[in-house]
Protein backbone atom coordinates (compact mmCIF):
# COMPACT_ATOMS: atom_id res chain seq x y z
CA UNK A 1 0.00 0.00 0.00
CA UNK A 2 1.62 3.20 -1.18
CA UNK A 3 1.11 5.96 1.35
CA UNK A 4 1.00 9.51 0.13
CA UNK A 5 4.13 11.55 0.43
CA UNK A 6 2.58 15.00 0.09
CA UNK A 7 3.30 17.35 2.97
CA UNK A 8 -0.35 17.97 3.81
CA UNK A 9 -1.67 14.41 3.46
CA UNK A 10 -1.56 11.30 5.62
CA UNK A 11 0.59 11.77 8.73
CA UNK A 12 0.94 15.41 7.68
CA UNK A 13 -2.79 15.90 8.19
CA UNK A 14 -2.56 14.45 11.70
CA UNK A 15 0.28 16.88 12.37
CA UNK A 16 -1.88 19.73 11.11
CA UNK A 17 -4.72 18.61 13.41
CA UNK A 18 -2.44 18.67 16.45
CA UNK A 19 -1.04 22.06 15.41
CA UNK A 20 -4.61 23.39 15.15
CA UNK A 21 -5.37 22.09 18.65
CA UNK A 22 -2.28 23.80 20.03
CA UNK A 23 -3.03 26.97 18.10
CA UNK A 24 -6.47 27.07 19.76
CA UNK A 25 -5.08 26.24 23.21
CA UNK A 26 -2.24 28.76 23.07
CA UNK A 27 -4.33 31.52 21.48
CA UNK A 28 -7.12 31.25 24.06
CA UNK A 29 -4.67 31.10 26.92
CA UNK A 30 -2.59 34.04 25.71
CA UNK A 31 -5.67 36.09 24.82
CA UNK A 32 -7.16 35.56 28.26
CA UNK A 33 -3.92 36.23 30.12
CA UNK A 34 -3.23 39.42 28.18
CA UNK A 35 -6.80 40.63 28.52
CA UNK A 36 -7.21 39.97 32.24
CA UNK A 37 -3.81 40.10 33.99
CA UNK A 38 -1.16 41.36 31.60
CA UNK A 39 0.71 43.30 34.32
CA UNK A 40 1.40 40.20 36.43
CA UNK A 41 3.80 38.57 33.98
CA UNK A 42 4.08 40.46 30.69
CA UNK A 43 7.06 38.45 29.43
CA UNK A 44 5.34 35.11 29.98
CA UNK A 45 2.12 36.30 28.35
CA UNK A 46 3.82 37.84 25.34
CA UNK A 47 5.70 34.58 24.95
CA UNK A 48 2.40 32.67 25.05
CA UNK A 49 1.11 34.96 22.33
CA UNK A 50 4.24 34.38 20.23
CA UNK A 51 3.88 30.61 20.68
CA UNK A 52 0.23 30.85 19.64
CA UNK A 53 1.16 32.81 16.51
CA UNK A 54 3.83 30.26 15.59
CA UNK A 55 1.39 27.36 15.99
CA UNK A 56 -1.12 29.11 13.73
CA UNK A 57 1.45 29.95 11.05
CA UNK A 58 2.93 26.43 11.23
CA UNK A 59 -0.52 24.87 10.76
CA UNK A 60 -1.20 27.12 7.77
CA UNK A 61 2.23 26.41 6.29
CA UNK A 62 1.79 22.65 6.60
CA UNK A 63 -1.74 22.81 5.22
CA UNK A 64 -0.79 24.97 2.23
CA UNK A 65 2.28 22.81 1.56
CA UNK A 66 4.05 23.76 -1.66
CA UNK A 67 7.42 25.42 -1.69
CA UNK A 68 6.48 28.51 0.31
CA UNK A 69 4.30 26.61 2.78
CA UNK A 70 7.08 24.15 3.52
CA UNK A 71 9.56 27.00 4.01
CA UNK A 72 7.18 28.66 6.46
CA UNK A 73 6.56 25.39 8.30
CA UNK A 74 10.30 24.72 8.49
CA UNK A 75 10.94 28.14 10.00
CA UNK A 76 8.09 27.73 12.49
CA UNK A 77 9.13 24.26 13.63
CA UNK A 78 12.73 25.46 14.08
CA UNK A 79 11.71 28.51 16.11
CA UNK A 80 9.36 26.32 18.11
CA UNK A 81 12.06 23.81 18.95
CA UNK A 82 14.49 26.54 19.98
CA UNK A 83 11.69 28.22 21.93
CA UNK A 84 10.51 25.18 23.85
CA UNK A 85 14.06 24.04 24.71
CA UNK A 86 15.22 27.58 25.52
CA UNK A 87 12.22 28.47 27.65
CA UNK A 88 12.36 25.04 29.27
CA UNK A 89 15.95 25.58 30.37
CA UNK A 90 15.32 29.19 31.41
CA UNK A 91 12.20 28.31 33.39
CA UNK A 92 14.16 25.69 35.30
CA UNK A 93 17.18 27.93 35.83
CA UNK A 94 15.35 31.09 36.85
CA UNK A 95 11.76 30.78 37.99
CA UNK A 96 11.55 34.57 38.44
CA UNK A 97 11.73 35.05 34.70
CA UNK A 98 8.42 33.29 34.03
CA UNK A 99 6.27 33.76 37.14
CA UNK A 100 3.27 32.29 35.32
CA UNK A 101 3.02 29.21 33.16
CA UNK A 102 3.44 29.42 29.41
CA UNK A 103 2.90 26.70 26.83
CA UNK A 104 6.65 26.20 26.73
CA UNK A 105 7.47 26.29 30.47
CA UNK A 106 9.24 23.19 31.77
CA UNK A 107 9.63 21.91 28.19
CA UNK A 108 5.84 21.94 27.79
CA UNK A 109 5.22 19.74 30.83
CA UNK A 110 1.81 21.34 31.37
CA UNK A 111 0.76 19.96 28.00
CA UNK A 112 2.15 16.45 28.30
CA UNK A 113 5.47 17.49 26.69
CA UNK A 114 3.71 17.56 23.34
CA UNK A 115 5.10 21.09 22.66
CA UNK A 116 8.57 19.50 22.81
CA UNK A 117 7.71 16.52 20.59
CA UNK A 118 5.64 18.44 18.05
CA UNK A 119 8.40 20.51 16.38
CA UNK A 120 10.62 17.42 16.18
CA UNK A 121 7.86 15.49 14.45
CA UNK A 122 7.24 18.49 12.20
CA UNK A 123 10.90 18.67 11.16
CA UNK A 124 11.05 14.89 10.62
CA UNK A 125 7.94 15.05 8.48
CA UNK A 126 9.29 17.95 6.42
CA UNK A 127 12.48 15.96 5.92
CA UNK A 128 10.63 12.81 4.82
CA UNK A 129 8.50 14.75 2.36
CA UNK A 130 11.41 16.82 1.02
CA UNK A 131 10.80 15.53 -2.51
CA UNK A 132 7.13 16.55 -2.38
CA UNK A 133 6.59 18.01 -5.85
CA UNK A 134 3.59 20.08 -4.77
Amino acid at each position, binding site marked *: *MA*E*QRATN*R*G*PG*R*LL*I*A*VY*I*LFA*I*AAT*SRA*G*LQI*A*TKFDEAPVAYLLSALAALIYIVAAVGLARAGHAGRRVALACCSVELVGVVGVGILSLADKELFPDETVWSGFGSGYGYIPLVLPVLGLLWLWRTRHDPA
Partner: protein
Amino acid sequence: MTTAAAAGSPVDGILATASIVLSLLIAVWALVAAVRHRAPDRLQFVGLAVLEVALLGLAVVALVALGGGERPGEPGAFFGYLVTLVCLPPLAWVLARMEPTRWGSAIVCAVCLVTPVVVVRLQQTWEVVGG
Protein backbone atom coordinates in the same frame (compact mmCIF):
# COMPACT_ATOMS: atom_id res chain seq x y z
CA MET B 1 -21.99 25.26 52.50
CA THR B 2 -20.10 22.42 50.89
CA THR B 3 -23.36 20.90 49.69
CA ALA B 4 -24.25 24.14 47.95
CA ALA B 5 -20.88 24.14 46.19
CA ALA B 6 -21.24 20.49 45.21
CA ALA B 7 -24.74 21.04 43.82
CA GLY B 8 -23.63 24.29 42.19
CA SER B 9 -21.58 22.98 39.28
CA PRO B 10 -23.70 22.45 36.19
CA VAL B 11 -20.83 20.86 34.28
CA ASP B 12 -20.16 18.08 36.76
CA GLY B 13 -23.11 15.79 36.13
CA ILE B 14 -23.98 12.74 34.09
CA LEU B 15 -23.55 14.59 30.78
CA ALA B 16 -19.95 15.48 31.54
CA THR B 17 -19.15 11.95 32.66
CA ALA B 18 -20.89 10.47 29.64
CA SER B 19 -18.96 12.82 27.32
CA ILE B 20 -15.65 11.79 28.84
CA VAL B 21 -16.42 8.07 28.67
CA LEU B 22 -17.80 8.28 25.12
CA SER B 23 -14.85 10.34 23.95
CA LEU B 24 -12.36 7.83 25.36
CA LEU B 25 -14.29 4.94 23.77
CA ILE B 26 -14.14 6.65 20.37
CA ALA B 27 -10.42 7.32 20.90
CA VAL B 28 -9.75 3.63 21.60
CA TRP B 29 -11.88 2.53 18.64
CA ALA B 30 -10.15 5.03 16.33
CA LEU B 31 -6.74 3.94 17.60
CA VAL B 32 -7.56 0.32 16.80
CA ALA B 33 -8.67 1.42 13.32
CA ALA B 34 -5.46 3.43 12.80
CA VAL B 35 -3.29 0.53 13.91
CA ARG B 36 -5.17 -1.78 11.52
CA HIS B 37 -4.69 0.67 8.61
CA ARG B 38 -8.41 1.42 8.50
CA ALA B 39 -9.93 4.72 7.42
CA PRO B 40 -12.45 6.34 9.81
CA ASP B 41 -15.54 4.12 9.68
CA ARG B 42 -19.19 4.88 10.19
CA LEU B 43 -18.99 4.11 13.90
CA GLN B 44 -16.37 6.82 14.41
CA PHE B 45 -18.49 9.43 12.66
CA VAL B 46 -21.64 8.37 14.54
CA GLY B 47 -19.61 8.49 17.75
CA LEU B 48 -18.41 12.01 16.96
CA ALA B 49 -21.99 13.11 16.25
CA VAL B 50 -23.29 11.66 19.53
CA LEU B 51 -20.35 13.22 21.37
CA GLU B 52 -21.17 16.60 19.84
CA VAL B 53 -24.81 16.28 20.95
CA ALA B 54 -23.67 15.45 24.50
CA LEU B 55 -21.28 18.42 24.54
CA LEU B 56 -23.93 20.78 23.19
CA GLY B 57 -26.22 19.46 25.94
CA LEU B 58 -23.49 20.25 28.46
CA ALA B 59 -23.19 23.77 27.03
CA VAL B 60 -26.96 24.29 27.26
CA VAL B 61 -26.99 23.11 30.89
CA ALA B 62 -24.14 25.53 31.64
CA LEU B 63 -25.90 28.42 29.90
CA VAL B 64 -29.16 27.68 31.73
CA ALA B 65 -27.26 27.75 35.04
CA LEU B 66 -25.74 31.09 34.00
CA GLY B 67 -29.21 32.35 33.16
CA GLY B 68 -30.28 31.27 36.66
CA GLY B 69 -27.66 33.60 38.16
CA GLU B 70 -24.86 31.11 38.83
CA ARG B 71 -21.34 32.17 37.93
CA PRO B 72 -18.21 30.15 37.11
CA GLY B 73 -15.05 30.71 39.16
CA GLU B 74 -13.11 31.93 36.13
CA PRO B 75 -15.68 33.21 33.62
CA GLY B 76 -13.21 34.02 30.83
CA ALA B 77 -11.48 30.66 30.91
CA PHE B 78 -14.81 28.86 31.35
CA PHE B 79 -16.28 30.35 28.16
CA GLY B 80 -13.02 29.74 26.32
CA TYR B 81 -13.10 26.07 27.20
CA LEU B 82 -16.83 25.79 26.49
CA VAL B 83 -16.50 27.25 22.98
CA THR B 84 -13.40 25.15 22.26
CA LEU B 85 -15.14 22.03 23.52
CA VAL B 86 -18.13 22.19 21.16
CA CYS B 87 -15.77 22.86 18.23
CA LEU B 88 -13.63 19.74 18.79
CA PRO B 89 -15.87 16.97 17.35
CA PRO B 90 -16.65 19.02 14.20
CA LEU B 91 -12.91 19.65 13.76
CA ALA B 92 -12.21 15.90 13.98
CA TRP B 93 -15.12 15.22 11.61
CA VAL B 94 -13.96 17.63 8.90
CA LEU B 95 -10.31 16.56 9.04
CA ALA B 96 -11.24 12.86 9.10
CA ARG B 97 -13.46 13.37 6.04
CA MET B 98 -10.53 15.04 4.24
CA GLU B 99 -8.25 12.14 5.14
CA PRO B 100 -9.90 8.79 4.32
CA THR B 101 -6.85 6.77 5.38
CA ARG B 102 -5.54 5.34 8.65
CA TRP B 103 -4.36 8.85 9.48
CA GLY B 104 -7.96 10.03 9.50
CA SER B 105 -8.58 7.53 12.30
CA ALA B 106 -5.45 8.82 14.03
CA ILE B 107 -6.88 12.36 13.88
CA VAL B 108 -10.16 11.18 15.43
CA CYS B 109 -8.16 9.43 18.15
CA ALA B 110 -6.06 12.52 18.90
CA VAL B 111 -9.03 14.88 19.13
CA CYS B 112 -10.99 12.41 21.28
CA LEU B 113 -8.06 12.22 23.69
CA VAL B 114 -7.99 16.01 24.01
CA THR B 115 -11.76 16.35 24.55
CA PRO B 116 -11.86 14.74 28.06
CA VAL B 117 -9.01 17.02 29.15
CA VAL B 118 -11.01 20.06 28.07
CA VAL B 119 -14.11 18.76 29.90
CA VAL B 120 -12.09 18.40 33.11
CA ARG B 121 -10.54 21.87 32.66
CA LEU B 122 -14.06 23.23 32.13
CA GLN B 123 -15.13 21.72 35.45
CA GLN B 124 -12.07 23.17 37.19
CA THR B 125 -12.69 26.68 35.87
CA TRP B 126 -16.26 26.56 37.20
CA GLU B 127 -15.28 25.39 40.64
CA VAL B 128 -12.42 27.76 41.51
CA VAL B 129 -14.57 30.05 43.67
CA GLY B 130 -17.27 27.67 44.87
CA GLY B 131 -14.87 24.86 45.82
